[in-house]
């Protein structure tokens, strides 16, 4: 480890890092703007200037940029030298020439990196009295607000959006003092990762638009460590709450999972928490079908009356916590419990769980995925099914560039140089899918095949790897690609609804001999894998089997699950209307809830605590951000109380969350690691609980005085080591208990570096989560059976297309997400469109047996023969079944959606911002 000297202080540094990183690692405050740990250095902003001396005798030195200067043994620097401090102050002063003094009305104010740096360099008085440049802002869609006047031209936005996230529709325009970052023309940002601009921008150019509509300052937000419920990746998030509403979601750093970035579903998809569909009270159904609100105890007593001494069955949920599912399963007994998957899904995810336990390959974290130097994707449009994984895959193709840079002796953080060197040379990625995927632009090979043929392709690759000769040149090439790699990665998943595809991915992975072979599966929901592991012993029931028994049982309990999304309407109607008493715990109104006899208002993820198992097999804990509103209760508490009322032998002994975790951990060897996921309730950091509120949290006793002048006691959290308070320390605690980041002098999210053990490393408190599944030595047992289907003329294979916005049950109830989701669609190739004489936006009737759906046309750029896609998970496509054969017909009654339906927000925006004229169409 080289030693360097900074202002006479001896500092041990890491070989190959730059002096800015070295300073930050040493805890020194060196201001910066354009450098970002995930994006490296370009030396554009000149803020991290410091003085470097030739040797001990050199007293003058020269100014160098910290982010562009590699450390070397014995190098001497000064942060405090007068010319360095003057230089840094002058840089901020020059940035302030054009920066508006609008901090009080800026959404970034109070968590602004520019504010922090301005204070840090000591620049206080503006000398410039001239006019400032002003710009016209653009409408960038419902998620991101644009305010160009605040720009300091650091280029972070463009480097993130284009270089890192692969977006094409945002860029730097013009030059010198009229530089502009925006789109070619106004419109919705196309990237699924646009929300990270909010955190990447060091000032208020790009801000969170939904948050602006219900704004609070960062210091007034109450936060808790949480886990995104949007998909199975398990990104760590920090939702911020005030006045009982979750106002925004920020990234919560976990070096092994999401790092610094979230997808837009994760960041903006929690708006449903504040929607009118949420339940506040438990209710008992009146004869007329409406519900009569009752107190919690009444609801429990009623339920107990229906359950005691009766036959009770229950359905769990892949979007509910492990603890709630465990309690429900114990309450009714494993045989009377169905996990709440659709039957087909149960097979798929069960299959994945089995493969993950038996495969020799690594089930990689996102950090590991980024190390892949050859990727084979089978069937999955990862950007839409596991978005954050897709962002990691985008980074993996850069390993070729890093390899080239290493040969040249170029450090990886020299971002512009590395990109210049590599141009468009990338590590190989082969995508085998039925149609376009959002990663096609970085793939070296795209193969369009129907799901059955994807499975056959996978098995051909496996055969080629085993040394057999295949007559499939593309499969041979894919095999060669994987064989030549050090860290090959196979990605597949359940979105094709095809077991064969999943099996073939496992076959490829097992045919590879590299020790670092990775096999990653995308599964649909935040706890899909956890639930699959829970029922892996085979003792639980299936939805269909339960429906058959429904007439013979007295009560059915449904946990956080809209069953109409799990099976065809007939089956679910039969299940719910069988004369059985239906007790539902859920947080929002849906079809299942409407059919229930008793409803218990469940708390949302932001009001409760629980453990989820991600697709990586990582168990992670989420904590309540605020205490449940009205008469809501976390599902696990409803069930625990219910167990007490019905005097359940085993469960009524349990009192606290930690005891449930312990019991759950004991229930299966797979869950043994659960006890280590997060500290116990009794954990104290230097004598205190961890505060959810910032030190300067304001109005704690006064913020509700508009309703009541009484000052209520702060809610108590009896179940976790976090408190609803500002008292205590938020520093260096276990990673799973980090509610927000803040450090003295660092109010922005850049304060994260004070929490990291080193730049870009794990938090000082570690990397949260425990991996429950480790790879085995035996290798997976995989069936290589492949189906052959014969199509009649004019028939198409229906292939599900998961959509980041619209396919997910909960986030789809967020206004902004619903706007981006648009109408349910049918996606066809250009040739089919030509034949049917339809264009994008027209309507087609999709006929599947006697079911008929009218859907909007989208045109694909590549598609497998005889395949058409449909937007999965949309209400319009609920009747369609993946893999079925359908016919198409032009819908003559179709009304094309007008621009106002798609861009309602745009019209409103133009009215406000408008360019003066009433020229709105």
């Amino acid at each position: 480890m080289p030693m360097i000297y900074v202002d006479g202080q001896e500092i041990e540094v890491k070989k190959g890092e730059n002096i800015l990183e070295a300073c930050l690692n040493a805890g020194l405050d060196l201001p910066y703007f354009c450098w970002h740990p995930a994006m490296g250095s370009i030396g554009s902003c000149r803020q991290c200037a410091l003085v470097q001396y030739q040797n001990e005798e050199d007293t003058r030195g020269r100014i160098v940029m910290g982010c562009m200067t590699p450390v070397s043994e014995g190098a001497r620097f000064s942060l405090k030298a007068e010319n360095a401090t003057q230089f840094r102050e002058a840089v901020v002063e020059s940035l302030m020439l054009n920066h508006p003094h609008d901090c009080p009305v800026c959404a970034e104010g109070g968590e602004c990196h520019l504010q922090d740096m301005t204070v840090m360099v000591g620049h206080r008085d503006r000398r410039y009295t001239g006019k400032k440049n002003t710009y016209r802002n653009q409408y960038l869609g419902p998620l991101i607000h644009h305010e160009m006047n605040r720009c300091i031209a650091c280029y972070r936005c463009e480097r993130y959006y284009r270089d890192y996230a692969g977006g094409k529709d945002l860029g730097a325009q013009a030059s010198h003092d009229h530089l502009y970052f925006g789109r070619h023309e106004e419109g919705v940002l196309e990237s699924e990762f646009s929300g990270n601009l909010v955190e990447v921008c060091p000032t208020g150019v790009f801000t969170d638009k939904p948050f602006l509509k219900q704004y609070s300052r960062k210091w007034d937000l109450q936060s808790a460590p949480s886990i995104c419920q949007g998909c199975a990746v398990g990104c760590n998030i920090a939702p911020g709450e005030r006045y009982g509403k979750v106002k925004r979601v920020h990234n919560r750093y976990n070096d092994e999972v999401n790092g610094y970035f979230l997808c837009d579903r994760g960041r903006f998809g929690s708006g449903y928490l504040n929607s009118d569909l949420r339940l506040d009270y438990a209710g008992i159904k009146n004869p007329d079908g409406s519900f009569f609100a009752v107190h919690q105890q009444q609801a429990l007593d009623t339920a107990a009356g229906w359950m005691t001494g009766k036959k009770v069955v229950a359905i769990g949920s892949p979007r509910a916590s492990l603890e709630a599912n465990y309690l429900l399963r114990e309450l009714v007994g494993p045989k009377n419990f169905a996990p709440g998957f659709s039957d087909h899904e149960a097979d798929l995810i069960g299959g994945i769980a089995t493969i993950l336990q038996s495969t020799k390959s690594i089930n990689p974290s996102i950090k590991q995925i980024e190390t892949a130097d050859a990727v084979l994707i089978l069937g999955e449009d990862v950007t839409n099914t596991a978005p954050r994984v897709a962002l990691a895959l985008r980074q993996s193709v850069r390993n070729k560039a890093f390899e080239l840079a290493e040969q040249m002796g170029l450090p990886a953080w020299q971002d512009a140089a590395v990109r210049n060197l590599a141009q468009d040379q990338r590590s190989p990625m082969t995508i085998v899918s039925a149609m376009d995927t959002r990663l096609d632009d970085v793939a070296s090979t795209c193969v369009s095949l129907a799901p059955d043929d994807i499975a056959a392709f996978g098995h051909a690759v496996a055969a080629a790897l085993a040394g057999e000769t295949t007559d499939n040149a593309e499969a041979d090439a894919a095999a060669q690609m994987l064989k030549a790699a050090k860290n090959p990665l196979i990605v597949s998943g359940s979105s094709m609804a095809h077991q064969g595809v999943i099996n073939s991915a496992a076959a490829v992975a097992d045919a590879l001999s590299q020790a670092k072979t990775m096999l990653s599966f995308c599964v649909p929901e935040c706890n899909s894998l956890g639930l699959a592991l829970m029922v892996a012993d085979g003792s639980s029931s299936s939805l269909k089997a339960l429906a058959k028994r429904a007439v013979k049982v007295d009560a059915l309990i449904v946990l956080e699950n809209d069953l109409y999304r799990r099976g065809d309407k007939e089956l679910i109607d039969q299940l719910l209307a069988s004369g059985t008493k239906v007790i539902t715990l859920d947080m929002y109104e849906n079809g299942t809830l409407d059919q229930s006899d008793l409803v218990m208002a469940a708390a949302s993820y932001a009001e409760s605590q629980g453990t989820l198992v991600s697709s990586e097999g990582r168990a992670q804990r989420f904590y309540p951000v605020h205490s449940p509103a009205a008469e809501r209760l976390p599902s696990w508490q409803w069930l625990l109380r219910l167990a007490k009322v019905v005097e359940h032998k085993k469960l009524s002994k349990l009192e606290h969350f930690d005891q449930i975790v312990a019991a759950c951990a004991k229930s299966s060897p797979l869950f043994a690691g659960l006890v280590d996921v997060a500290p116990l309730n009794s954990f104290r950091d230097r004598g205190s609980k961890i505060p959810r509120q910032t030190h300067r949290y304001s109005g704690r006793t006064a913020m509700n005085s508009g309703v009541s002048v009484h000052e209520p006691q702060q809610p108590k959290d009896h179940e976790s080591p976090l408190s609803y308070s500002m008292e205590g320390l938020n520093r260096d605690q276990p990673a799973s208990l980090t509610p927000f980041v803040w450090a003295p002098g660092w109010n922005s999210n850049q304060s994260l570096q004070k929490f990291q053990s080193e730049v870009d490393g794990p938090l000082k408190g570690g990397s949260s989560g425990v991996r429950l599944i480790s790879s085995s030595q035996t290798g997976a047992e995989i069936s290589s059976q492949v189906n052959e289907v014969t199509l009649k003329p004019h028939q198409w294979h229906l292939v599900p297309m998961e959509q980041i916005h619209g396919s997910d049950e909960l986030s789809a109830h967020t206004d902004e997400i619903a706007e981006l989701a648009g109408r349910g669609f049918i996606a066809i190739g250009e040739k089919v469109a030509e034949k049917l004489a339809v264009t994008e936006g027209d309507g087609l009737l999709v006929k599947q047996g006697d079911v008929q759906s009218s859907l909007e046309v989208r045109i694909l750029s590549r598609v497998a023969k005889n395949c058409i896609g449909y937007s999965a998970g949309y209400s319009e496509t609920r009747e369609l079944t993946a893999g079925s054969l359908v016919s198409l017909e032009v819908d003559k009654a179709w009304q094309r959606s007008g621009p106002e339906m798609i861009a309602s927000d745009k019209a409103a925006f133009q009215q406000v911002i408008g360019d003066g004229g009433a020229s709105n169409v």
Partner: protein
Amino acid sequence: MSNAKMIQSDISSVLTRQEMAEIDHELEHIPYKSGAAIDALKIVQAGRGWVSDESLQAIAKYLDMSSEELEGVATFYNLIYRRPVGEKVILFCDSVSCWIGGCDSIKQTISDTLGVDYGETTDDNRYTLLPVPCLGACDRAPVMMVGDDLITHLDDNKISEIFSSNKSGVQS
């Protein structure tokens, strides 16, 4: 969006066969299509005087670039015009040598004669007046370019001679 939706037939309805042929010629020498961006913009501007949104989108599509990427290139260079200009562009040097040579008052004369300030086009659409940092003719300062002609040793007489009331054209 309009770029993403633009298909092949749209490109050829915007770019002429001649323009596409010239761009194709440039592409022969370049490993990456986007490398021809500047030349393509110059080709289109040479024929049309400026680069409209429609032209820009067509060029971007032709070169497999996003409109944003090409817009970045087009707006970076101040001699690619993204707004219509007059028949001739006056590039008036206001850099050091010309400034010492009294360019400020000469510029005023031009503005008075033509009735335009920087960035403006005369009503008859003949001239657009733009400032330029240097024309590389400091030894003959003050200088300007009118269209393709470099005019040196400017003074008020020369200005009125050039932009005579009948505006019959440029004499150097």
